[in-house]
């Protein structure tokens, strides 16, 4: 495994300079393509504006704190300050219908997340009431299904936290059925269901103390055997005098414990959300952070002696940093190929970011939180999905 990682250390000066040259050339092509598209995209926009972003009657009685899709994107869960969770199913016509809504916690529900469907239809939620709960959909005795309603029952309540549980995430499926929580008192807990058929049994496997109030966690989704299980933890501690609001922990096969592999010292402001990009067989990891700006980090694993118990060392690069949300950034989310990043922030807008072939990240779409269009933005909506800038800029430059 070591040999293939090593190549990142040895970019020769010759190759580097040549790369730079190429980059410049294709960037010209890229901008040309972009500007020439502006009038076209506008007209497309006007036609499609209505159905590009559409509103769904959520019917929550208070703020919605989280939305989460299942693996296939056919189901969705929302949670709210009204202490309830709603589950939505997408019909054949593409319309979302709420098929379950129930009161879950005795406090605001911060986050809700789906397990991989191979573990059944399983949700986990976490709340201000200091608990995290695992829910499973069951086939009810009544004819719920006929009425279009499904039935969810509480499988377990995890009560180890003494403070508000701020985030909950299932581990990648290749690790088995594992659940992670983090709480305001700075503890990250990793639970495992040893028997995936019995969701009422969860054992606390690891407790990691991050020493800072935790606000968010993200698992590295890479299933490659070259990458040890890894979790990133963000802190909303608002004291900006010290950095390191993002910590990365890695599982060590030898000690069978999670150990801190990296602390991002440059992140000093409160972190509100954190997301590892789907790895998709890449040799490095990409981490998006929502703090007072959108930040994208690249973590390149350096060669490691597989027998040593020391955690992997990383070469950490900042790929991008955008403060166009003006102030706080609340959420970041990657698409399935980690080629598009969506972020939301204090300006009330959802912004989409995309890299061209050489990791030059650009904003490719802006949508207002209420679904309306931002005026004066060239191609604000057309650029949103499946379009705008691409690696083919390179191809255009190098010829056939």
């Amino acid at each position, binding site marked *: 495994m070591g040999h293939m990682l090593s190549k990142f250390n040895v970019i020769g000066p010759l190759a580097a300079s040549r790369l730079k040259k190429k980059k410049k050339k294709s960037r010209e092509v890229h901008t040309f393509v972009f500007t020439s598209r502006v009038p076209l995209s506008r007209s497309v926009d006007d036609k499609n504006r209505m159905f590009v972003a559409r*509103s769904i009657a959520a019917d929550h009685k208070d703020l919605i704190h989280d939305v989460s*899709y299942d*693996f296939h*994107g056919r189901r969705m869960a929302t949670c709210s300050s009204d202490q309830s969770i709603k589950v939505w199913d997408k019909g054949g016509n593409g319309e979302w219908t709420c098929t379950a809504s129930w009161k879950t916690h005795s406090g605001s529900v911060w986050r809700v997340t789906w397990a991989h469907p191979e573990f059944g239809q399983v949700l986990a939620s976490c709340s201000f009431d200091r608990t995290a709960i695992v829910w499973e959909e069951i086939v009810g005795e009544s004819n719920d299904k006929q009425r279009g309603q499904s039935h969810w029952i509480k499988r377990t309540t995890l009560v180890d936290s003494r403070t508000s549980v701020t985030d909950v995430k299932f581990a990648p499926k290749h690790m088995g059925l594992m659940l992670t929580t983090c709480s305001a008192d700075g503890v990250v807990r990793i639970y495992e269901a040893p028997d995936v058929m019995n969701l009422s049994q969860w054992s606390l496997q690891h407790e990691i103390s991050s020493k800072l109030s935790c606000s968010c966690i993200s698992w590295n989704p890479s299933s490659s055997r070259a990458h040890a299980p890894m979790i990133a933890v963000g802190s909303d501690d608002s004291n900006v005098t010290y950095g390191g609001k993002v910590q990365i922990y890695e599982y060590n096969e030898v000690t069978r414990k999670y150990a801190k592999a990296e602390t991002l010292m440059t992140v000093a402001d409160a972190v509100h959300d954190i997301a590892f990009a789907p790895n998709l067989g890449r040799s490095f990891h990409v981490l998006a952070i929502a703090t007072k700006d959108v930040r994208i980090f690249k973590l390149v694993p350096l060669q490691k002696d597989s027998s040593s118990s020391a955690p992997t060392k990383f070469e950490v690069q900042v790929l991008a940093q955008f403060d166009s949300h003006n102030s706080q950034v609340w959420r970041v989310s990657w698409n399935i190929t980690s080629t598009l990043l969506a972020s939301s922030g204090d300006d009330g807008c959802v912004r989409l970011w995309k890299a061209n072939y050489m990791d030059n990240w650009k904003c490719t779409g802006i949508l207002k939180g209420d679904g309306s269009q931002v005026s004066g933005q060239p191609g604000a909506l057309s650029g949103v999905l499946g379009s705008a800038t691409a690696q083919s800029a390179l191809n255009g430059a190098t010829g056939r």
Partner: protein
Amino acid sequence: MSSGYKPDILWSPHHADRYVICDTELSLYRIGPAGSPETKAGALPLSEQTAATLLAINSDTPYMKCVAWYPKHEPECLLAVGQANGRVVLTSLGQSHNSKCKELVGKEFVPKHARQCNTLAWNPVDSNWLAAGLDKHRADFSVLIWDISSKFSPEAVPAEKVRLSGDVDSGLVVTKPLYELGQNDACLSLCWLPRDHQKLLLAGMHRNLAIFDLRNTSQKTFVNTKAIQGVTVDPHFQDRVASFFEGQVAIWDLRKFEKPVFTLTEQPKPLTKVAWCPTRMGLLATLTRDSNIIRLYDMQHTPMPFGDEVEPTIIERSVQPCSESIISSFAWHPSAQNRMVVVSPNRVMNDFTVFERISLAWSSTTALMWACGRHLYECTEDAGQGAAAAEKDIATKMRERAQSHYGHDTVQVWRNHVLAGGDDPQLRSLWYTLHFMKQYTENVEQKQQSNKQSLIYSGIKNIVKSSSGTTETRRCWSGSDRQTDVPRYHSEERSLALQLCGWISRGPDIDVEPFLKSLEQEGEWERAAAVALFNLDIRRAIQILNKGASAEKGDLNLNVVAMALSGYTDEKNSLWREMCSSLRLQLKKPYLCIMFAFLTSEPGTYDAVLYESRVAVRDRVAFACMFLNDAQLPRYIDKLTYEMKEAGNLEGILLTGLTKDGVDLMESYVDRTGDVQTASFCMLKGSPGEVLKDPRVQCWIENYRNLLDAWRFWHKRAEFDIHRSKLDPSSKPLPQVFVSCNFCGKSISYSCSAIPHQGRGFSQYGVSGSPTKSKVTSCPGCRKPLPRCALCLMNMGTPVSSCPGTGKADEKADLTRDKKLAQFNNWFTWCHNCRHGGHAGHMLSWFRDHSECPVSACTCKCMQLDTTGNLVPSDSV
């Protein structure tokens, strides 16, 4: 409220579109959509959507210190103004005065001793009551509650005080307050308590907050604190009060008044205003002096249930409504969600909405869902958008390519680039390379030369290295007798490389004519001309260029180039040479450029050709194989390979082949693009032994399969698995289910032994043509009968008679499909849970109308047990 002459702002309690700015005068504005006919030309833009129109100005009341808007509908636009001398004046703005208003406007309420009026508050219920908080004056009271309906009392008014108020009719002056509170103290701020309108919360100079009940003014509850400014009650949680001192805000719970529930983080500058959002729970806005930021505190949870005290989570946010300019004051809109207007010291106003924290998520199918406040929005991929393919995201591209069977054409391998959309030069190059490799191995197979076969997939880099027996020739320019001074190199390996580059088809003779013809057909004139030239055929090159110029949409400039070309001379110091080497740099088309570079270069120094990055790699490599000697060639190829690997350029697969080098190259391609689809299909073409075992390749394949699964492209995934197992037999999964006989315990599936395993989760029965067909209703081991179908009660294995309810019109439409499904009807299926089952066809038709198991007294809801089973693959049509 306001201090000095900094403008303050006040929303009308009843008109959602009106507000007042007060500094030295009162100005009433109406807010409306920008650019609408209502808003006139003089409207001030407040935001992109809204503008304000000035309706009225009132400058009757000088020395304003604070203003409060009368809370009742009638009379509208009645304002109480507290002045620097402690007087409170009622005034109005721009209204046609009705009788009631007339009676009130101009009324003055005068304290015994003149001092500054700090704050005013109307009683929310008994709207005749107006509380005024004043500075301290010896032992006098600092809070006076006036009844605005009370009549004047002339005898109490000293004459000189009447004069002070100028021309105002002395009949409107009131000097006797209803209540007097706060003796021997000053009042900095006050508010009425909405829970009990007789109660008043006062903040005095003596560092205390006190609650007075007007029914018994001698009693009060009070608490000592520094935070005595700007007391204000949370409109959503009436026991919660905020007050501040310098930079710190204290939040109080009136039920536990002894100490603040909590204090907010201190700000470096003194606060000037603190206000609860009237439209949203637990949102407090604060403003400090000389700041351009409004800081918001989002108290996410009302202090409530469980026994012990838990501090609510507070999310701090700051907003900058008007970029750099300093904010003098702000006011929440009374009804519009989270909206406020801010005003700067020089009266620039800004309409502004505080947004909720938006949470968002991508679905696997590239739909974006976000929640804003209580609302959900979904932004879905719009297939008909017609965005140029080059600009699509790779996720979209992979989905489209999967649906067009990209990668599955194993006969005409090059066609895969067409299936991929045909617009990506790198993919085109890759699939042509793989095509040529495959073509060659097929030829070689006929010749039984297996040693070459392994070489071919290891790329030109390795082929060239193994080169031996290179011969050097000097050929003539065709059509002339003169020998060129250009040495050309030949070897078996070099001609093999040329074949992989696609320049020649097969055999040892180098005949590029078929290649030139195909290039001509595709209209690649410049490239064809360059290839012809490199084969030392100037005449053919000129002919091609002429053809190109006269072709449809041809470039007439090609004739000019042909002309220049025809003047070629190998004279070293000719004018032709001189001009060509300088002017060729101005040629835009790379192939024309390298033609002249070749003609003007010294033999053996072809850097201008070899490092022209706009020229396709395969052409440069072919050129190198012809004109670089055995020392130069491997060096050049190595350098180029390294470059391609670093850039992740798929054209480089030609050089690396499907070796470890190739995987390295593919790795940087995947790193750059995320295109695991191409990576998987490409690596599957390689020799199974080496590259497929590479963990990176396995990882790409797993990731690609996972993507297909997430998209519900299950059929595509299955097809991919079949495709994969053909090329990589080790990936074939084992049978997953066996059915054993109830009596003898042996596996009953003789189909498994007779023919390869088919289907997952089912054992196939009733295979037509099977010699044991007559006996399939019994166990092959012990000859005991098999279980019966729960519906037809026949032993399994019996051919199924068509069941009622299935022969619908839609099935008739497609007879072949019907036949295929009829086979499936014979399959033995059962519920994993209750273990009842029968013929698949019978079961399906039963569960079309029922949810419970067909076996009597079994209440198992067999069909609903698996939610994934209810999902429809999205690629089935």
